[in-house]
């Protein structure tokens, strides 16, 4: 590659500030005591403590996976703080009682929570380090029977629902990080959409890591009863620290007959500096169960941050005629590493899945798509279509595609397409010759490349995502 499409330089990360707030933290390290302490702090029902302990004991027997195409120094799990909450321990009933420093923090992040300023048609659950600090529009949602609250509150107010579904999609021993999460998760969001209800507004959770030494282990559970539907979005940012923070979340979705869940993510955790110092390790397990017939689960993700991303939002298509979708844009720059993709497991008849993955690698980064399409023996008429496109910017970036296809049914149809392209000097010169600056040129090409995925995002966020990508690549060419 020529000199003029040079290494990309990140726009300074604008969410990198630290909020100075007193917090209630557990000492570093992990043992059964830690688990008892977390559970006690949260005043949890007995079954939850047992769940955690079972998970912890499983985790001790497991080993960290080495198959992802990423490199990082060994994580010292005894050096992590597993619980850190801003001092105002009890969650306040009214937003007016929430520590103003916290409200300010979220406002600075573009997520105003106060009554006057909140987003018009989006309910937000704001999570700061280990706990949820506020959830907006709870009452309005309750009028429709929709439950939207932190998982800690759900454990108190709706323990039977949590008990029924928690761990039903991602079993505690599913994988190393899921087991860890099951043992120590501190908070997250809970959504329950009752039978026949179309959720009247977008639901979203905003995750903020503030403490430099704490890990974030959130747990999200969304249940859509028969004939219901919901669209949910998560956003994430973190301060810039020289050290790495571990984020090991678990998200479980359950869709019953004729229900649909759309889950979108715009991930912008701190990615580390240009030399790869600092940044979040984003090791996440997300899985949706299309339990009922004609149900549908759709994942859309825009992954732009984190030093390392290890994430495969998946769909288990049990119900006949159920549909799984995965639309992903993963952008890596500088020294970022991403190993991301999906698993579509076809079990029921006439199940359908679509995978559209767009990887963009710039700088010295490494971006791998890893996806599994599995069709079981009873999945007559199952269909999958996968499209995995990679775009390289500069000559030092890497893109890999690892599609795994396992078909045990002769009546299934599986299609896979893949392309690799490159933003070349010739294209940039052509556009420059038409008066278009290199930055606009890259942004046009990237938007075009990501169009099929952005079209899936809720409107407000599509614009946001487009801007975010341009920002991430600003100063990249010249």
């Amino acid at each position: 590659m020529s000199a003029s499409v040079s290494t990309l330089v990140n726009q300074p990360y604008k969410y990198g500030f630290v909020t100075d707030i007193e917090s209630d933290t557990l000492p570093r390290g992990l043992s059964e005591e830690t688990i008892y302490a977390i559970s006690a702090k949260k005043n949890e029902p007995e079954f939850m403590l047992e769940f955690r302990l079972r998970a912890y004991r499983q985790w001790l027997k497991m080993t960290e996976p080495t198959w992802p195409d990423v490199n990082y120094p060994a994580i010292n799990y005894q050096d992590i703080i597993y619980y850190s909450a801003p001092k105002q321990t009890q969650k306040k009933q009214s937003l007016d009682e929430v520590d103003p420093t916290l409200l300010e923090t979220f406002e600075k992040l573009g997520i105003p929570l106060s009554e006057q300023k909140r987003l018009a048609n989006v309910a937000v659950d704001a999570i700061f380090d280990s706990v949820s600090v506020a959830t907006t529009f709870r009452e309005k949602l309750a009028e429709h029977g929709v439950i939207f609250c932190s998982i800690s509150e759900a454990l108190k107010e709706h323990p039977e629902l949590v008990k029924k579904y928690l761990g039903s999609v991602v079993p505690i021993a599913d994988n190393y990080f899921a087991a860890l999460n099951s043992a120590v998760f501190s908070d997250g969001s809970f959504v329950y959409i009752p039978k026949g209800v179309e959720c009247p507004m977008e639901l979203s959770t905003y995750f903020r890591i503030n403490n430099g030494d704490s890990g974030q282990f959130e747990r999200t559970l969304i249940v859509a009863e028969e004939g219901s539907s919901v669209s949910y979005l998560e956003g994430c940012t973190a301060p810039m620290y020289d050290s790495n923070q571990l984020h090991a979340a678990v998200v479980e979705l359950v869709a019953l007959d004729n229900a649909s869940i759309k889950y979108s993510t715009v991930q912008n955790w701190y990615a580390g500096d240009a030399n790869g110092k600092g940044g979040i390790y984003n090791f996440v397990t997300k899985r949706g169960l299309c339990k009922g017939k004609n149900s549908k689960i759709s994942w859309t993700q825009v992954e732009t941050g984190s030093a390392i991303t290890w994430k495969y939002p998946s769909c288990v298509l049990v119900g006949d005629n159920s549909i799984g979708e995965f639309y992903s844009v993963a952008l890596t720059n500088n020294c970022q590493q991403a190993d991301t993709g999906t698993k579509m497991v076809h079990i029921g008849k006439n199940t359908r899945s679509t995978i559209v993955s767009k990887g963009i690698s710039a700088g010295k980064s490494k971006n791998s798509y890893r996806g599994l399409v599995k069709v079981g023996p009873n999945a007559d008429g199952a269909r999958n279509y996968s499209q995995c496109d990679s775009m390289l910017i500069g000559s030092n970036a890497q893109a890999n595609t690892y599609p795994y296809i396992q078909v045990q049914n002769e009546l299934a149809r599986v299609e896979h397409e893949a392309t690799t392209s490159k933003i070349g000097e010739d294209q940039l010169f052509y556009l420059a010759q038409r008066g278009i600056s290199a930055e606009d040129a890259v942004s046009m090409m990237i938007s075009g490349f990501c169009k099929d995925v952005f079209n899936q995002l809720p409107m407000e966020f599509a614009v946001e995502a487009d801007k975010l990508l341009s920002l991430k690549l600003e100063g990249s060419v010249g």
Partner: protein
Amino acid sequence: MIVDNAPTVLSVKNLTANVNDTPILKGLKLEIKAGEIHAIMGRNGSGKSTFSKILAGHPAYEVTGGEVVFEGQNLLELEAEERARSGVFLAFQYPVEIPGVSNLDFLRASYNARRKHQGLEEVDPFDFEDVVRDRLQVVQMDASFLDRSVNQGFSGGEKKRNEILQMALLEPTLAVLDETDSGLDIDALRIVAEGVNQLANEKNAMLVITHYQRLLDYIIPDYVHVMYDGKIVMTGDKELALELEAKGYDWVDELQPVGV
């Protein structure tokens, strides 16, 4: 057309340039006034496209000496996109494909970049549709090409028409057409040439690079230059093109001083 006392659009003096440390242009001189059409002919590899890309500001070409003045300003100081916005247009010999970017969005971005530079208001997508539809007629191009990705999957001739469509939109002061005739069928050649003639006026200038006299039957040049080893070694009127066609480049070789 040659106009008395017309202002100079482009003045190139003793231009030398390298690609990857190899000298390609070796002292090129050329002066173009408003209203004029110049043609450059010359052997493959003599440096015609290199010259056009240097005018347009391609970063891979290193200018090692000489000067290039466009409408009174030092062109070499400007970035490629600034040159374009100021009115230098290059119709590429090999137009580039840009997957994922719609031709219409691209044309509008380009059109607005030029307008902004001229201090004019940018045009919104609705109004732009009208503007572009009007210009499509210059090259008799179908509107369906607007919805496709820039040049992607266009045939050779369609790409060339798309170049002239851009020229029609941008109304450059200096248009350099690098082998716009190659790859065109007989009807397309006539259409493109007529388009170019429609756009030529007393305020702008054209520099047409071609291998074939055929194009010059439609676009009548005021001057014909012969490029040889990175220099212009002969200049004449349209008769020179005919003479070249008849005698070939060996004739030019023989006229070169020995040992240069």
